[in-house]
């Protein structure tokens, strides 16, 4: 009871601050209202910021307008809190009347947004959250994703582990929540399709980081390889503990890119030489990437990352839709058709959209060298999420 009073008071204060902070400048001129619903506080604050910067960079490169339409931004901090997702999304849609909703990082929040977007038929572009359900059972004509699905890098790593590295057996590890299950499931699918065998899936409750029992269990099972899904603090600690337990040299460790993205400083030498898969990498030999990186650094004074790219591509996707509708905001069908048919010239390499509105994109194998996730080779070309449960054609 005590806690609920506190949270209520806090959310009141927060709501007031938000209401005061956002201007409601209505103008006669036609413009596109873009609502960012991203994490601007908490663990994911940096990610939310980079996504917004990427988006803004693309719009600025087009002279601040898309198809002759001015862009007006609205912002709401989603706090990475799924329980607040419907309220926050409704705030942007009902109060600010945004034309496009852009968000977010956290999968649980993105699911809430997808629900609201379906109910209100608002255009939604998801610049990160990889939850399979969003472009699976929850898929809808007005919901797009400019990032990835959890299944994609995981499946690619399964193929690589079996074919390139020739492993026969593996153990998968993750926190027991949806993203972990989707990722380790994707790995298993890829690995076993090439004759490998996942001996056991080990999991622990989120966000427990006491990994010793699991490490002991791995040493006991002696697989050829280990695949893990952890991100942020959990990823740092897993990689350190894995090396300290003496397993790094005897049983190779693999994971999706999040295992070593933005965490290398904390992981230090323990991460050196680890292989991961993702739709982006350092030292990509792509001209568009070099231009993007230079422009981004010049504009924001720090290096972009995969989240910046996903924000940038969210803007490109919107632009493609507006182009197809010739700047007619009202022509919703044309916008959606245009986005669906778009070929995006992304810093990660060109990609197209799948029937479920997920990027069909190359998955890269990367290797940790110093502070970089260096590009090694293309693991799988034009990989499409199977979008199980999606009835769209």
């Amino acid at each position, binding site marked *: 009871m*005590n806690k609920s009073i506190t949270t209520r008071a806090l959310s009141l204060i927060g709501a007031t601050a938000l209401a005061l902070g956002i201007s409601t400048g209505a103008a006669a001129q036609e413009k596109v209202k873009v609502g960012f619903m991203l994490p601007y506080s908490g663990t994911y604050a940096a990610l939310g910021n980079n996504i917004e910067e990427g988006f803004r960079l693309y719009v600025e490169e087009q002279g601040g307008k898309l198809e002759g339409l001015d862009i007006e931004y609205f912002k709401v901090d989603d706090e990475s809190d799924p329980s607040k997702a419907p309220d926050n999304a409704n705030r942007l849609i009902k109060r600010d009347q945004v034309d496009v909703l852009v968000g977010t990082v956290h999968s649980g929040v993105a699911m809430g947004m997808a629900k609201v977007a379906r109910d209100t038929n608002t255009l939604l572009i998801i610049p990160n959250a990889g939850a399979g359900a969003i472009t699976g059972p929850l898929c809808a004509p007005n919901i797009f994703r400019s990032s990835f699905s959890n299944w994609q890098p995981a499946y690619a790593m399964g193929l690589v582990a079996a074919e390139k590295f020739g492993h026969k057996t593996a153990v998968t590890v993750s926190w027991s929540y949806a993203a972990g299950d989707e990722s380790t499931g994707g790995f298993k699918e890829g690995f076993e399709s090439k004759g490998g065998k996942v001996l056991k899936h080990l999991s*622990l*409750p989120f966000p427990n980081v006491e990994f*010793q029992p699991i490490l*002991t*269990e791995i040493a006991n099972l002696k697989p050829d390889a280990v695949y893990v899904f952890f991100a*942020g603090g959990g990823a*740092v600690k897993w990689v350190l503990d894995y090396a300290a337990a003496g397993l790094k040299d*005897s049983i190779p460790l693999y994971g999706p890119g999040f295992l070593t993205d933005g965490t290398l400083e904390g992981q230090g030498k323990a991460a050196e030489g680890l292989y991961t898969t993702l739709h982006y990498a350092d030292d990509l030999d792509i001209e568009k990437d070099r231009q993007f990186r230079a422009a981004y650094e010049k504009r924001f004074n720090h290096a972009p990352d995969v989240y910046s790219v996903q924000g940038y591509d969210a803007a490109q996707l919107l632009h493609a839709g507006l182009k197809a509708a010739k700047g007619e905001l009202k022509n919703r069908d044309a916008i959606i058709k245009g986005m669906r048919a778009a070929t995006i010239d992304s810093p990660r390499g060109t990609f197209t959209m799948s029937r479920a509105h997920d990027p069909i994109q190359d998955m890269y194998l990367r290797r940790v060298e110093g502070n970089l996730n260096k590009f090694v080779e293309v693991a799988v070309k034009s990989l499409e999420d199977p979008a199980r449960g999606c009835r769209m054609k």
Partner: protein
Amino acid sequence: MDLTTFLIQCLNSVQYGLLLFLVASGLTLIFGIMGVINLAHGSFYMIGAYLAYTLASYTGNFALSLLIGIVLSVLFGYLLEWGFFSFLYEREHLLQVLMTFGLILVFEELRSILVDDDVHGVPVPSWLEGSIPIGNNMTYPIYRLFMSGVCLAIAVAMYYLIRKTRIGMMVRAGATNREMVQSLGINISLLYRFVFAGGVALAIFAGMIASPVSSVYPGMGNSVLILSFVVVVIGGIGSVKGALVAALLIGFVETFGIVFWQQAAGALVYVLMAAILLWKPEGLFKQGT
């Protein structure tokens, strides 16, 4: 599971349990003995870890940073009691909850401003680096064993201090009847200021010593906060011995829960707490033991 693996898992359990004890021991003093509901306890743990991270980059010497950290944390705890907590002893619990919850938000925001939101690692001191082979193909980091040793030493020292010394006697007496102790000519306010400072210092110390294995990241205090309360409640409020037993018990339940019953691992600790409270509503041990 063969015998070696079983023994290693037991070692894991004990090691985890001892660390839990260290984190919860400060809460035993503040919540258990002084009776203040302190939600900011996890924040102190977080502050400790960030302190270790910051000091390590300045001094480059782990032992020296630990020493500086202990001095700073006692000072910090003393000032916190003087400025905030001393006004709350006579107030109802809701106010204590409100203020300490506010402190969590303040400390988290300060952390974000002063350091940043990234994940950082703290290097293991060179003289504790390395690991010893254990079982067939595993090694155990020496630092983890060192950590367990320190936790055990602190458990013994705390028990001795509270059970066998004059100061411990005054603290226990104060917990039972504050006014009576005061009328016997003991400056209970000052004494409790130091007890509080000690509790804060223990949490900060736990954060510092755990930082090389836990790494340093935003929100790290929240996860230990709940477990600390579980330890104190299972062990019996205000009992050092109880906290140690409870922490070890939780260590075993969590470790073997993950091995044998993954689906339920997250809930087992709370089931254990519920079962123990049904059996012994006051916790395993009495206050002051």
